[in-house]
């Protein structure tokens, strides 16, 4: 598994764990699948929870003064790219 695949896999596991999703496994979440609204069907409270969980797990901070920080939460691939970028930063 490449680093990126591993990270995406871990983020999917984090989503399932942090949001308490039942009957969904890592394999059921596509990396490009939309997380909120249609798609996986997560809501705005999940978005808040996931923001906290990602920051905690990866020891990173969402830059609250940057614009459009929530675009990173579109799907697992964009989240993985965001985590990678913040960890390097």
């Amino acid at each position: 598994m490449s680093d990126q695949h591993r990270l995406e896999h871990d983020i999917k596991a984090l989503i399932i764990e942090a949001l308490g999703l039942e009957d969904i496994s890592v394999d059921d979440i596509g990396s490009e699948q939309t997380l909120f609204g249609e798609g996986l069907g997560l809501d705005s409270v999940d978005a808040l929870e996931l923001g906290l969980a990602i920051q905690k797990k990866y020891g990173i901070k969402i830059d609250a003064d940057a614009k459009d920080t929530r675009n990173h939460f579109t799907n697992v691939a964009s989240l993985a790219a965001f985590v990678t970028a913040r960890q390097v930063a």
Partner: protein
Amino acid sequence: MKGLKLEHLLLEPLQQRSVTTEPEMNHAQLWAQSLSLAAGLQARGIQRLAVHLEDAGLLAIALLGAWRAGVSVLLPADLQPQTRQRWDDAVDAWLVEAADLDALYQAPLSAAALDLDTCQLSLCTSGSSGEPKRIDKTLRQLANEVQALEALWGADLKDACIIGSVATQHIYGLLFRVLWPLCAGRAFVRKQLAFPEDLQRASREHPQFAWVASPALLKRMGDNLDWPALSQVSRVFSSGGALPIEAAGSLYDRLQQWPTEILGSSETGGIAWRQGAQPWQPFADVALSQDADGALRIASPYLPEGHIEQTADAARIHCDGRFELLGRLDRIVKLEEKRISLPMLEQALMAHTWVAETRLGVVQENRASLGALVVLSADGLHALRNQGRRTVTQTLRQHLSQHCEALALPRRWRLLRQLPLNAQGKLPQADVAALLLAPRPKAPDVLEHVEANGEWTVQLSIPPDLAYFSGHFPVTPVLPGVVQVEWAFNLGQQLLDLPATFAGMEVLKFQQLVRPGDQVELHLRFDQERGKLYFAYRNGVAACSSGRIQLVNAHA
């Protein structure tokens, strides 16, 4: 004096008075556009208007314009197709985006005071039956509330820009984000800012600011925020649901002030407020009493004259007039500020052919969500056996999604053989919650067991929700052979005097699958001489599996 009465907002244009930020709108612009909109509404003969606008500035224009034209306004909770269908006959037109207003602007009506008793606003909320409930208010009720808020906190807030994380379709957002600032002459941010980062960016742009927020946001604000900068906030309002004391305390640590919690409802408007772990302080002129069950009864200038609102909130009223809430007396729950009727969702779930019985409860974990206990019908069991658990739960979620918001969809499901009613034939809510929190079962339900000539016959029911079914296999759950052996071993230990240690298996045969909901018979016989436990599972006349388990004494 900057304060204007709600009914006087359209009397004259005030160039210097700020209304919104980004894009900025001053009072003179608001005045002109409201009167132009009023003219357009009147020219088209519109008398009843539904308004759902995300831009609080446009909402202000729409409300004032409608009231000036004598048009009653309905604020639907959302724009889902069923919602639009429900109200379509009750209104003449919908304003849901800027273009809808643009199409109506005409040469303006003259400036005039608004009539406090004929101007109408209707809010929508979920009633106790679950049917959306329409609550009609006069402008007088709203004006009374705005005045009380300004009297209480106006001096503190001064020129703070009002930044909101809640929608303006509901009473709290409407009053705190729009009507109160309009009257007080405070600028407000047009957009609902649901994320902490957006709230911070908006806050930084103003020397003074106050937040109109909800527990959903306030309990999820992280360390990534610039708390020293945010601690300039003039006041943090929270309403829509209970703010946990830990969240209030954490805000106190970071902001050096307690958030101000507002207790109220669409029906009653504001009832009381508090900061930190204090009892609730009723707003001035709100008169409280209690019925025989201890539920609050409310009379207030924010209700229609002479009306006493009966709530389902149990309370203890202190002698100084402040009070504590002791919980709901009905089965309405609040999830992230959304009022949800459990009986309504249960009814909706029962309407699905796969469901024989169901009870819903709240699962308190990271976030509170709903969980469902479900007894499947024969059809439902068939679906579970042939399509798997995920298909069943997703199909039921899909079915429910026509009746409620995504937030209310049960996230946890427990499929039961029957509801474990107590001796009174009831299933208390605490038991529902406990069943939802319990892990899925790993043992069979033992219905009865009898012994004859040293052989035990045990009637077993295979729980539909056995933990082993999920991975084995996702779409065709079957009872794993290794689990059948384990059950035979465990039940043998309970019923017979057996050596304690498992030492191997012989002549294992698996002939027919055992599936969720099956009732099977387990035969157990111990051959003392050979130290072997004989087991056989049968389903009716069909043999499912059989074998021998070699047992030895622990220290043999």
